[in-house]
């Protein structure tokens, strides 16, 4: 049996995005739309060689070669998009942008607030070009309010919204997030914003402007803990907190990450209730397991520090995968803390999912990238084409979409417009 992968997903094949997004917080949004079949036309600056996206040409690199086409992060975040260049310092560049907006459903960007406005393309201007255009902006603090001009990037957003503080162990500074969690979800929530506006347009024919502040999108991921403050007056900034390897929503114990044999090897265990505790204790088979203080959740919570120390001493003689499998076999949620090689190359579930598709990039060749975590029965995602090289699709977009001749496109190149 052979299966033929379609060239594109059909889900959003009727949608065209005029896309100024970059980095991950923006590019992640249109990555999803492109994988689901939208035509995403990514606009880059020919003068600065696309470097308004700092990931373009940045590490990791596949081999010893360096250059703006060879950055691993940029390549990962821009698969399945078309790439064009446009010099918006020029009148002809602006005129071409107007033509692109006219034939697009959405204009998306994650510049600092005010950049598009300075170029003459704020929402009223975009609307004058196409009345039902959807304009989605995403920046650190949004386009209104006293901090609208503040500078941010992922870790700044995370620190300002409460996410960094929420990750850590007692008596230590915040551990925070060891990556730009809010670049991923800034992008994903921006995708939701674009999709919401498209659904509204489908029903009513109306466009709109969506103003997204990445900091608010991040804060919105901390709901219950904020209610514990506004309703109960219990702030997360209090002695002994945060303690995020434990579970406060709902209380569970034991619930933590414990050392195993091997170099920096750890296992995560959650006992959801007394039932899980009894089974966990049977597997551990330690003298303290029968301690009456641990028989109830209230008792385990009251003596959680002592219990965690005892567990950590016992798990040190276990291999992390063996212990997780043993606990799963008796019905207790557990998992090894997986290293990148383990979850990417040795996890049967990620390979069965097809989670690491290989794309073909014009300069890099074959590269594996992130897949998508949802499979669609009728219009599944397709990730096969690598990120666009600078101006790779100028002929296709200016020629096929805007109807220009090869000679006219050559002139644009000669004149520094593209």
């Amino acid at each position, binding site marked *: 049996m052979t299966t033929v992968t379609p060239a594109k997903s059909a889900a959003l094949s009727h949608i065209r995005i005029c896309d100024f997004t970059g980095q991950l917080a923006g590019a992640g949004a249109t990555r999803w739309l492109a994988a689901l079949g939208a035509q995403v036309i990514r606009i880059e600056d020919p003068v600065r060689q696309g470097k308004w996206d700092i990931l373009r040409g940045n590490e990791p690199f596949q081999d010893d070669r360096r250059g703006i086409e060879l950055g691993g992060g940029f390549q990962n975040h821009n698969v399945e998009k078309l790439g064009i260049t446009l010099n918006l310092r020029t009148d002809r560049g602006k005129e071409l942008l107007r033509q692109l907006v006219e034939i697009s459903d959405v204009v998306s960007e994650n510049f600092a607030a005010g950049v598009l406005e300075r170029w003459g393309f704020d929402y009223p201007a975009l609307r004058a070009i196409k009345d039902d255009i959807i304009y989605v902006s995403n920046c650190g603090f949004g386009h209104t309010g006293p901090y609208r001009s503040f500078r941010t990037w992922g870790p700044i957003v995370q620190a300002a919204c409460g996410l960094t503080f929420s990750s850590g162990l007692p008596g230590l500074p915040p551990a925070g997030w060891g990556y730009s969690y809010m670049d991923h979800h800034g992008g994903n929530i921006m995708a939701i914003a674009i999709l919401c506006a498209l659904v509204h347009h489908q029903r009513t024919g109306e466009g709109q402007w969506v*103003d997204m502040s990445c900091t608010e999108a991040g804060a919105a991921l901390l709901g219950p803990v904020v209610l514990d403050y506004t309703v109960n007056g219990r702030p997360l900034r209090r002695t002994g907190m945060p303690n995020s390897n434990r579970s406060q929503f709902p209380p569970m114990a034991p619930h933590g990450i414990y050392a195993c044999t091997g170099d920096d090897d750890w296992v995560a265990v959650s006992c959801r209730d007394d039932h899980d505790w009894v089974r966990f204790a049977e597997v551990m088979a330690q003298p303290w397991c029968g301690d009456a203080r641990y028989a109830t959740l209230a008792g385990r919570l009251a003596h959680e520090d002592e219990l965690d120390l005892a567990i950590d001493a016992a798990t040190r003689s276990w291999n992390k995968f063996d212990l997780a499998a043993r606990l799963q076999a008796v019905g207790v949620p557990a998992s090894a803390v997986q290293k990148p090689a383990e979850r990417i190359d040795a996890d049967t579930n990620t390979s069965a999912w097809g989670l690491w598709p290989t794309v073909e990039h014009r300069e890099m060749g074959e590269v594996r990238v992130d897949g998508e975590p949802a499979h669609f029965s009728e219009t599944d995602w397709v990730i096969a084409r690598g990120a666009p090289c600078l101006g790779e699709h100028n002929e296709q977009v200016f020629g096929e979409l805007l109807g220009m001749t090869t000679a006219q496109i050559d002139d644009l190149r000669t004149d520094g417009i593209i």
Partner: protein
Amino acid sequence: MERSESAGPGGPLSGLRVVELASSRACFAGKLLAIYGAEVIVVEPPGGHETRHWAPFAGDVEDPERSLWWWHYNTNKLGVTIDLDDRAGADALRSLIATADIVVESEMPGVLAAKALDYPDLRSLNPAMIWVSVTPFGRSGPRASELSTDLTVLAGGGPVWSCGYDDHSIPPVRGGGNQGYQTGSIFATMSALTAVLHRGATGIGQFIDVSLHAAVNVTTEAATYDYLVAQRTVQRQTGRHASVRMTTSSFAEAADGRTVHSGVPPRSAAEYQRLVDWLDDEGVREEYGEAFFLEMGVARGGVQLNEIATDPEAQAIFNAGREAIRFMAERSTAYEFFMGAQHHGIAATVVYSPEEVLSDPHFVARGFPVEVEHEDLGASYTYLGLPFICNGSASQLRRAPRIGEHNGLLG
């Protein structure tokens, strides 16, 4: 455009009906659809869903109508109770699903099939419906039946490996807030809306299989692509990106004892100039004492990363820049530092605890904190607002439903 007025009833998703089977894993997907205007009917068993029994409770009074988890994740939803194990209940669910545009559920694989209430059983009732399943490892796959919690999902899927402290004898850390579940819910929402647009164009419904394990695997940034592209393994560090090389600390302690994020140490001429200006504006150039190096940084047009290791002058400039920011942090409160840095164009910030966001003047000015009326308790409480603003309309939040509050919908 301020969030001063409502855009009218509904929001962008008004007109869509969603049937959600109550769960801990997918409740955030239902919430995202509900707060943007979809009619979301959350189906609980008689007596209420398990998460209503999760502490903490309002006023610490244990009561299924007072769980803060339930309150937060079920705003703007309608609530019905149905016993799926009884014939009449199963019929009631079938009738409801026959009217749905979207079904969101998070039952373990096989659970709904055993009741003849899974997508293949119900598809003929409503061929154009979009059914989104959210499970720990997907509906099929070798690990599909494994048990999980938010902690084990994040441990197995990559995020935990990248978070923690410089000292690797301290366990790696799960970030707070049940982000594994929320990551799955975010992708479930993206999927549902994508399928709605496809259906609008073609009339075709479909089944969507969302895996939490896959979702957290593809949201770990360089931990994944550094391995995929260069076969390198990142290592966790205190409060900053896990990296193949150790980087310098990005935290400083302000005069009020609070942690601030000092950003990336400056390297460009413009950044050195802004730092000099900041020192001058505060009148502390002399006190800092190393402004000379910052001016050298301006004069030589900034320093390059590769020069810092080899050129003593570049190294002195780089260190002076980093130390100037630390100096400013140590002599101000965290908030003063945040304002001072940002007003001089330097990307740095206070590290807020989640509740502190609500009283920050910026978020207040944008209408992000929202009062939600709990008329049943004779009180109103402040909730977090919406993650994005559609057409400048105000956040409209309605309290979560009480048990069976909208059973009238079942006819």
